[in-house]
């Protein structure tokens, strides 16, 4: 431990701590922009965290300066206050002044820091930012370089957490530019559309493509039948964007809010999560029995799929052919449901609420129109839904609960845990075990695949199949580690789950901003509660609505209709940039 004094407070902190960390532990919040607890990077770029250290001639950046024995630090001297103010002023002098209409108004860290240092005037203007252009090429993510403050947070996330290496610094000095090489439009790069950079960005320089206006328009159009589905992870995170504690399970309120917004039918992606288990479990058993490509790898995470198509196209045969639950639901809404309800699918607008920006890309893929129409028309992230709820003036926290609609709403606990890393694996093992052995697992909780360990392994004795080895990875750096093993033939897993985002969908790129491991764990706990304590059934094959759809429509898992509607194929993309317009998207039909 090291003893030091900050602002006359004596404290003792672990060796190697920075002044910033020491101050924080004593309840002193030094403003920061580039330092970010989610990642280990020390660009020391923004200089808003300056402090005075006795014996040092110059002010130091507290986020990189290590503590030492007997150090005396001052964080509120005139010199410090002046320097911090000046540095924020300089940032703002080369920054647009349209806070009122900025997507980050109210959640912007630059606004907060300007407030924290007490800045009231900006005396200079460097209008270089005006030369930058808006990149709206991606269906998922908008890049507005005019607002970039060059904090490098997205760079570290894209390179180290996701290993896509799309956003990088180029040029130098006051010309530094953060973005894809050659300022290529994102759609022409290896971007996975994961949106983890969006969660990292302190300002409005990276954000989700906002599709709320199109959805409002559909809701107001009396000729349209607007159907909605919600991913498992929404119910564990929406509440916190609307003033409730992190990890509040808000399933019933969410469904009521969607009804108030005017959706005509409210289904649940959890239903098709159960269906995914039926199809994917059967596919796994078929591959094992018939000597198909193993390990089979899950395919519900579209950011992961695009990553695999770019960086591991040789492993595409390992991917399950199952569509993601979102796309299964999309295909069923405009076929099965339309048929059952006697509605012309061309009058249906299919909306999904997702924790994910990559889902916006997925729904526009050429392959995703097996109903004869674009299966899912609009994807809204959790943040967009929460904005719509706010715009509608709905007092979310005080809403009564309500229930999903049939026939595509009912779900089991196995489905709801899809939202946390390891959940698909756990759900699949429950059902595969039951199919193979004819009995249930002794305990439904398969804890080795839960939690935030980067790569998790488990081995389950499954009757006649013997020991089944499985692995789970979340975050693409961890996925890459597993793929390297598989590529080298050093992995003897039968089944591998990959989720693109760290922690899985509970911390997807479309979730409420400012992720942390604590939030990942708390949101996941809400889903495990839904599974363990709320839902009647905990195994996908027990879902009565799933049984029914096989009886009256799909016939059997991997049957003819399933192949037509629920399975898909993948594109060999490779890493050569710029990618042609092939990856680009069709216009939505409405």
């Amino acid at each position, binding site marked *: 431990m090291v003893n030091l004094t900050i602002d006359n407070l004596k404290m003792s902190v672990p060796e190697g701590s920075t002044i910033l960390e020491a101050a924080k532990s004593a309840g002193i919040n030094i403003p920061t922009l580039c330092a970010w607890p989610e990642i280990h990077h020390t660009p020391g770029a923004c200089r808003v965290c300056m402090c005075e250290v006795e014996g040092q001639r110059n002010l130091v950046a507290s986020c990189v300066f290590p503590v030492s024995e007997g150090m005396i630090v001052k964080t509120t001297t005139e010199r410090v206050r002046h320097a911090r103010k000046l540095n924020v002023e300089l940032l703002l002098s080369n920054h647009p002044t349209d806070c009122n209409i900025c997507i980050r108004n109210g959640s912007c860290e630059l606004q907060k820091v300007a407030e924290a240092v007490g800045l009231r005037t900006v005396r200079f203007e460097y209008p270089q930012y005006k030369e930058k252009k808006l990149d709206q090429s991606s269906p998922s993510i908008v890049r507005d370089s005019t607002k970039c403050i060059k904090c490098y947070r997205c760079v570290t996330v894209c390179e180290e957490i996701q290993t896509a290496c*799309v956003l990088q610094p180029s*040029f130098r000095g006051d010309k530094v530019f953060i973005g*894809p*090489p050659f*300022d290529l439009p994102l759609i022409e790069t290896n971007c996975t559309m994961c949106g983890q950079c969006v969660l990292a960005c302190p300002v409005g320089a990276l954000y989700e493509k906002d599709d709320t206006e199109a959805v409002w328009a559909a809701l107001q159009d009396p000729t349209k039948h607007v159907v909605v589905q919600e991913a498992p992870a929404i119910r564990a995170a929406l509440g916190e964007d609307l003033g409730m504690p992190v990890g509040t399970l808000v399933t019933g309120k969410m469904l009521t809010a969607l009804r108030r917004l005017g959706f005509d039918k409210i289904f649940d992606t959890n239903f098709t999560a159960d269906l995914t288990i039926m199809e994917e479990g059967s596919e796994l058993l078929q591959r094992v029995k018939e000597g198909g490509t193993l390990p089979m790898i899950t395919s519900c995470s579209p950011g992961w799929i695009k990553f695999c198509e770019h960086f591991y196209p040789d492993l595409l045969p390992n991917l399950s052919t199952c569509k993601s639950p979102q796309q299964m639901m999309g295909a069923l809404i405009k076929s099965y449901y339309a048929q059952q309800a006697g509605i012309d699918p061309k009058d249906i607008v299919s909306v999904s609420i997702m924790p994910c920006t990559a889902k916006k890309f997925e729904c526009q893929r050429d392959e995703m129109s097996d109903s004869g129409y674009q299966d899912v028309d609009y994807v809204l992230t959790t943040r967009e839904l929460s904005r719509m709820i706010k715009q509608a003036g709905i007092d979310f926290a005080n809403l009564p609960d309500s229930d999903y609609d049939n026939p595509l709403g009912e779900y089991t606990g196995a489905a709801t845990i899809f939202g946390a890393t390891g959940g698909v694996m756990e759900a699949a093992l429950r059902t595969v075990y039951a199919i193979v052995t004819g009995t249930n697992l002794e305990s439904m909780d398969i804890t080795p695949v839960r939690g935030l360990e980067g790569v998790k392994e488990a081995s389950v004795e499954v009757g006649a199949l013997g020991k089944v080895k499985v692995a789970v990875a979340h975050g693409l750096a961890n996925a890459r580690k597993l793929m390297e093993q598989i590529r080298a033939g050093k992995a003897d897993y039968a089944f591998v789950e990959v989720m693109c985002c760290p922690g899985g969908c509970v911390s997807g790129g479309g979730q409420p901003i400012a992720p942390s491991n604590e939030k990942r764990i708390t949101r996941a706990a809400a889903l495990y509660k839904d599974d363990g304590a709320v839902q009647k059934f905990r195994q996908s094959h027990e879902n009565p609505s799933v049984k029914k759809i096989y009886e009256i429509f799909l016939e059997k898992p991997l049957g003819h209709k399933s192949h037509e509607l629920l399975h898909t194929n993948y594109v060999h993309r490779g*890493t050569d940039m710029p990618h042609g317009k092939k990856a680009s998207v069709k216009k939505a039909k409405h």
Partner: protein
Amino acid sequence: MAAVDTNMTDAGLAEFTAEQLAQVDKIIADHRGKPGALIPVLEQVQEVCGYLPMAIQTVVSDGLGIPLANVFGVVTFYSFFTMIPRGKHVIRVCLGTACYVRGGQNILDKMSQVLKIEPGGCTEDRNFSLETVRCLGACGLAPVVVIDADTHGQVKPAKLEQVLAKYN
């Protein structure tokens, strides 16, 4: 990002000879898998190709297995790398004090206008590069323009096109 004109850099590999490309491949092969290979490879490749357009950076990125974004970051960081091709003829307009006083800036502006490029640029047909210099030690001849090895003194804006016509 005003500083990069992607049209200029996206001309593809067609402009390079098979020989040049073979040399590039060899340079990459010689360095593949070695740590710190990127900068020496880029240096040698620039020597061979004259400049480092997007297509060449892509070849280097693929060959060394280094993301294009990192290659681009290095190319734009160091001033001795260039993404702008060199013209067959290099025009240098002097903006030293003597030349400036006697209308050097006018000459440069006119030159830009005639060639349709900014200083630092290269004409579409790759015939001319336009650069500026500070004093060529020929102040008595101001304003001075040097094209390749030829010094042109007391240049008049109106005569520029006539002078340029000699260089094809």
